[in-house]
């Protein structure tokens, strides 16, 4: 009875209960099994035969099955052992199948790359998980698309790393391929052509103090105007000819004429002209450029640490006294002023004296 509840598809074929025929079920799959005990109740003499699928699964377990036949006292116990052997083997096979999944990914990938053109591939890691593809745009700029693949490619959406001024969102369906990402990337890159044209003109013709090495994703630029003044602009990559957000940095007497001329000239901003032209018109200046000056003239060192670059920082605080005009890193000046008993702090600003000329100076608390 026990046998019938546990293995309902395996039925005795004679009255003595020596011959059984039917199916054994594992993971919802059914395998045909015949068992002949020869002597009733005597398992050790029994012979087991099965269909080819099960034979294949059990091909390496023959001796274990024979052993189990010797050990088990009832047919029921033996069948439970047999079933667990089958289960184990099936799990093992599934794992092995996962391994072959990698090969399928590789095969698919090679086919994709074949279609895309090998000349676009700049890097592939040995495990075929990361691919770098290059793209030359209309302005002859080289862009690199970094794709990270999972074992589930092309079922799963790959991760993409790009140098674009905005996030690159890939549209991915189950039937998508590498080529689809590439063409989407191509499309996005073509949208930003004007932005990069404008930025390149600026980078070529001015001294960019920040970022140190602007990449294609950088929408900010800090441009040197004089040794004590600079302007930081934030350009909208979708509308690069529109008036950008401008922030002036430097001593009051250097910055206030710039603010004035900005207020006066803002009405003449003309989106048909380039960003650089418009900025120069707006501020009433010509930016010092690599053709007529040295960068050292504008990268003025901090009066405290004597360096220009302090980690990511460049000197941002300036003494407003026209005869002094000393520059400091925000964090250096703050560090000095906060230790002095004569300094006074209000919210995140500290008021003290310029270490050089002893005229009043303020420093904002650095953001950590």
């Amino acid at each position, binding site marked *: 009875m026990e046998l019938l509840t546990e293995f309902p598809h395996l039925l005795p074929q004679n009255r003595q209960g020596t011959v059984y025929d039917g199916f054994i079920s594992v993971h919802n799959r059914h395998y045909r099994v015949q068992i002949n005990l020869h002597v009733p109740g005597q398992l050790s003499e029994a012979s087991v035969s099965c269909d080819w699928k099960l034979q294949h699964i059990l091909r390496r377990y023959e001796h274990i099955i024979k052993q189990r036949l010797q050990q088990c006292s009832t047919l029921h116990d033996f069948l439970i052992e047999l079933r667990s052997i089958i289960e184990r083997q099936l799990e093992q096979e599934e794992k092995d199948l996962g391994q072959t999944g990698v090969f399928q990914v590789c095969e698919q990938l090679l086919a994709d790359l074949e279609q895309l053109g090998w000349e676009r591939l700049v890097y592939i890691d040995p495990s075929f998980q990361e691919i770098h593809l290059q793209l030359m745009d209309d302005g002859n700029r080289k862009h690199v698309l970094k794709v990270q693949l999972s074992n589930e490619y092309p079922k799963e959406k790959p991760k993409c790393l790009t140098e674009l001024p905005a996030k690159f969102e890939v549209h991915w369906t189950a039937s998508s391929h590498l080529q689809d990402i590439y063409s989407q990337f191509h499309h996005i890159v073509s949208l930003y052509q004007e932005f990069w044209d404008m930025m390149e003109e600026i980078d070529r013709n001015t001294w960019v103090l920040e970022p140190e090495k602007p990449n294609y994703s950088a929408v900010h630029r800090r441009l040197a105007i004089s040794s004590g003044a600079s302007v930081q602009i934030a350009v909208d990559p979708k509308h690069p000819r529109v008036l950008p957000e401008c922030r002036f940095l430097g001593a009051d007497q250097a910055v206030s004429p710039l603010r004035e001329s900005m207020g006066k000239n803002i009405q003449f901003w003309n989106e048909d002209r380039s960003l650089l032209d418009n900025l120069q018109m707006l501020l009433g200046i010509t930016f010092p450029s690599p053709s007529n000056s040295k960068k050292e003239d504008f990268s003025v060192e901090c*009066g*405290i*640490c*004597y*360096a220009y670059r*302090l980690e990511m920082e460049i000197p941002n605080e300036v003494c407003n006294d026209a005869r002094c005009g*000393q520059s400091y890193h925000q964090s*250096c000046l703050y*560090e*000095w002023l906060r*230790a002095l008993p004569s300094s006074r702090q209000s919210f995140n600003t500290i008021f003290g004296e310029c*270490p*050089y000329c002893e005229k009043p100076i303020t420093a904002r608390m650095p953001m950590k």
Partner: protein
Amino acid sequence: MTSMEKRLQKELQALTKDPPAGVIVNTESVSQNMSEWIVDLYGAPGSLYDGEKFQLSFKFSPRYPFDSPQVMFIGPNIPVHPHVYSNGHICLSILTDDWSPALSVTSVCLSIVSMLSSCQEKKRPPDNAIYVKTCSKNPKKTRWFYHDDTV
């Protein structure tokens, strides 16, 4: 390199390239340890110390230039001066209370040379005997009273 070492490196470069009169940095001492310098100082011509050679020791904490350097005379010849104790300690306000990161090794040396040059009479500070017996090794630990601006 730390920010302190970077600044000292630049100061050293400037001082060796373009040294003020009577100030010579001992580069050998510096090459071993960036935080301890020895500077040779020569008495200014025409002053009471004309022809004399002194040695200054500079010790920099990792917080330099936020902290002032520890500066004192060392070696066999300690100048006899109303602001210099016989153990080498110097009573000079820019070395403690009036220190500013705008100052440097060069400006400290120049201040000391000028302090020596303006001296009218070679004599030790009046409290020399008691100070030398009771003071700390580090002159920065002394509570200085800067009472005399004339010398």
